[in-house]
């Protein structure tokens, strides 16, 4: 029999109510904190965690560093990760943990995925990078046919819970067709996977650590436009943000705005503009797309009666379609207007027309006004 897999030596801390005061400085109270306040915390309450100003690639780097520290069998690999990665997410890791923990693979996404699955199937933690989400498709067979089904098809004899795939996604200003895609919807359609997308550095660190430790294969999409541009105070040390729980970033009464990843900034701007017009928007970050927290969204829509969903990916069969279908099933009687999606068009992602392609704050505001006036 195989020797038992190595276990992390220290358990991660959950973000406790005590940290609320620190995090909310200058930021609105999030449901993350509400969620943890209401729980019966088994672990002892912690002192206020130290914060450090980080951008998103630094926060992600920090998460991987913690994962590698805690678990001696955890490895990080992909194309160009050894020198620090094309987005600098793995800077310093090889120097600190050595070439057997942080290494380059040959240039093949299907190889990276298959290799990662084999490593995770042996009971260990594999953090695999797909250099751009646009190039995740060669890995699609391994991820959908193998990783997602490993536990089910084996009668729970085998699993690849230790697998996390990280991949930069989303518009970046000049990416065109193949450096801008948001392919999350292909994967949310795959039972057995978890799909997660953070909206900023603090969320990214906690969600990535949660993915790494989650006993299911996770795909963690990182909005590349936020790597440098998003800077905020991020708790130092180890923490996780619970998967499958949406974050009500801002309370409101008139319209529920739902998004994920970089789109939350767009929705925030639209909500601010709407506020000037006297429209109060409730802003929800799904964070986890599979499995997604429809109860939180439904509770909000029962209150507001109006839902606008927004994402960069093309509108047809985008994840907004799932949100719309599920919420209209759950909240039909509460709806005052049709559920509206503000998304990318059904075209490949264009270069010169990116500004017009993107679902920007003006388009979202237009939708907000339309549903309010319905």
């Amino acid at each position, binding site marked *: 029999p195989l020797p038992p897999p190595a276990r992390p030596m220290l358990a991660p801390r959950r973000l406790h109510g005590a940290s609320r005061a620190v995090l909310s400085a200058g930021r609105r109270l999030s449901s993350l904190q509400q969620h943890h306040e209401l729980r019966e915390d088994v672990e002892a309450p912690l002192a206020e965690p130290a914060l450090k100003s980080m951008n998103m690639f630094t926060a992600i780097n920090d998460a991987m560093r913690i994962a590698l520290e805690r678990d001696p069998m955890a490895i990080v690999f992909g194309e160009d990760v050894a020198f620090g990665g094309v987005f600098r997410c793995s800077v310093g890791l090889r120097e600190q943990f050595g070439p057997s923990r942080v290494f380059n693979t040959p240039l093949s996404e299907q190889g990276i995925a298959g290799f990662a699955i084999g490593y995770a199937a042996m009971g260990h933690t594999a953090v695999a990078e797909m250099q751009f989400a646009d190039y995740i498709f060669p890995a699609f067979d391994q991820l959908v046919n193998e990783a997602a089904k490993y536990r089910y098809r084996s009668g729970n*004899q085998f699993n690849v819970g230790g697998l996390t795939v990280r991949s930069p996604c989303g518009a970046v200003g000049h990416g065109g067709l193949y450096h801008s895609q948001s392919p999350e919807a292909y994967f949310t359609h795959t039972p057995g996977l978890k799909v997660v997308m953070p909206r900023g550095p603090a969320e990214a660190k906690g969600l990535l650590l949660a993915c790494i430790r989650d006993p299911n294969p996770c795909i963690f999409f990182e909005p590349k436009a936020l790597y440098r541009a998003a800077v905020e105070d991020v708790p130092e040390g180890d923490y996780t943000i619970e998967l499958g729980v949406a974050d009500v970033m801002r309370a409101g009464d008139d319209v529920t705005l739902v998004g994920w990843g970089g789109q939350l900034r767009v929705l925030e701007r639209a909500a601010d503009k709407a506020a000037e017009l006297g429209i109060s928007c409730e802003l929800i970050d799904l964070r986890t797309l599979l499995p997604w927290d429809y109860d939180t969204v439904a509770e909000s829509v029962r209150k507001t009666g109006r839902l606008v969903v927004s994402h960069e990916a093309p509108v047809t069969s985008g994840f907004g379609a799932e949100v719309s279908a599920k919420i209209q099933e759950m909240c039909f009687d509460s709806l005052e207007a049709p559920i509206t999606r503000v998304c990318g068009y059904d075209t490949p992602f264009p270069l010169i027309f990116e500004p017009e392609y993107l679902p920007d704050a003006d388009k979202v505001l237009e939708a907000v006004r339309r549903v309010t006036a319905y």
Partner: protein
Amino acid sequence: RAAPSRAPGAADTASMLRATSAGRGMASPGLLRAALSVMPRETDAAAAAAVPFAAQAQPAEAPRRVPVPVPQAHLGHFVAPPPCTSLELVLPRAYGEWPMYRVMGLDGHVEPGAELPDLSVETWHKFHTIMLQLRAADDVFMSAQRQGRVSFYMASTGEEAMHVGSAAALSPSDVVFGQYRELGVLFYRGFPMQGLADQLVANEDDYGSARQMGVHVGSKEHNFFTISSPLATQLPQAVGAAYALKHRRGLEGAGSAAADSVAVAYIGEGAASEGDAYVAMNFAATLDLPVVFFVRNNGYAISTPAREQYRGDGVVSRCAGFGMAGVRVDGNDVHAVYAATKAAREMALRESRPVLIEAMSYRVGHHSTSDDSTRYRDPEEMEAWKSSDPLLRLERFLRLRGLSDEVHEARLRDAARVEVLRALEEAERKPKPTLEKLFTDVYHDVPKHIREQEEGLMAHLAAKAGQ
């Protein structure tokens, strides 16, 4: 770039640059600009046209060669052998054909010059017994599918030596990633016939919870990862598993189980055309990993013969391209398969490198119960391969040594058949798994949305039953 237009007799810009730099050691800015522009400028072209190059005095002797210094530091990927001045497009025949290693002839005798692996008589009997069990299972379950007692089956007829010969060379702690036609490997490692019957009938005792088509078996206890239908996906996974073994060895030290374990991946010559196969070999070689790739070249991928599968010399010839060790072996010679697997495993383990074994064999039966190979196969070809049948060859070998005879073989065959029939009947007595197994194991825990769907199904069925 567009070719610059030429005035009659005008020198091209590159020649102008050469002429100037040879004379002065460097080009004037004006000439450089001209050289770099797509179209030569009118003034420069006019000046050049005034003195055609051909009319200039030629040097008396060839210019002296001044060697260009090459930095001694390595040029990265560029190997830089001495340049070759004769152009030759190398044809594949120059690479030669890989020989096929054999120990035992078709008649059961050890070939002159071959070394018979030093195995015990018990092991030879185990080869024989397991091959017969597999043969019996193939016969019974193929028939059972025609009768509707199992939904699907794939026989391994003709390939038994590859299974038992290779399995005998492995350690129980080696991790095995199969394709789908390696049941003999599982049996050799101790997997019970009842386990196969349960999986085929899809009852509550199936290790896989009755979720997969027939022969898609797996057993954690036997370090045999569950079979999946997509082809070649198991190869990169075996490579990742080998990395886990290598990494564990580093952490746990020389005496650990990981230090004495390799990953083994089986694949057919057809599936070896998949991208995952190439990718796995490249990763294994580049990352220096202890993995053995066992290619069962049985001549067919469903109806596609090997000559329509590749143009090179089988699969093992690809080793050169990957920088990987390899060997071709007679797949119907159980001794040769054993010896090759043992040697490959030792090299993989000792030197932390991948090794590929291409075992040449023949798929005697249909691809599966959904196939009728008489539609695409020549009966003469099938008849010709009977002389190489691995079970017959082993029986000839054993008879030559007084270790078997007709009576003994008949007894073993009957016992094997009885065992399979008993397992099938037993499997049919068991119920399906409970319906909750439809919804569990999608994730580690059952998430809310799946639980709600389960409740919906239960309510639907209850309502239907009530009508």
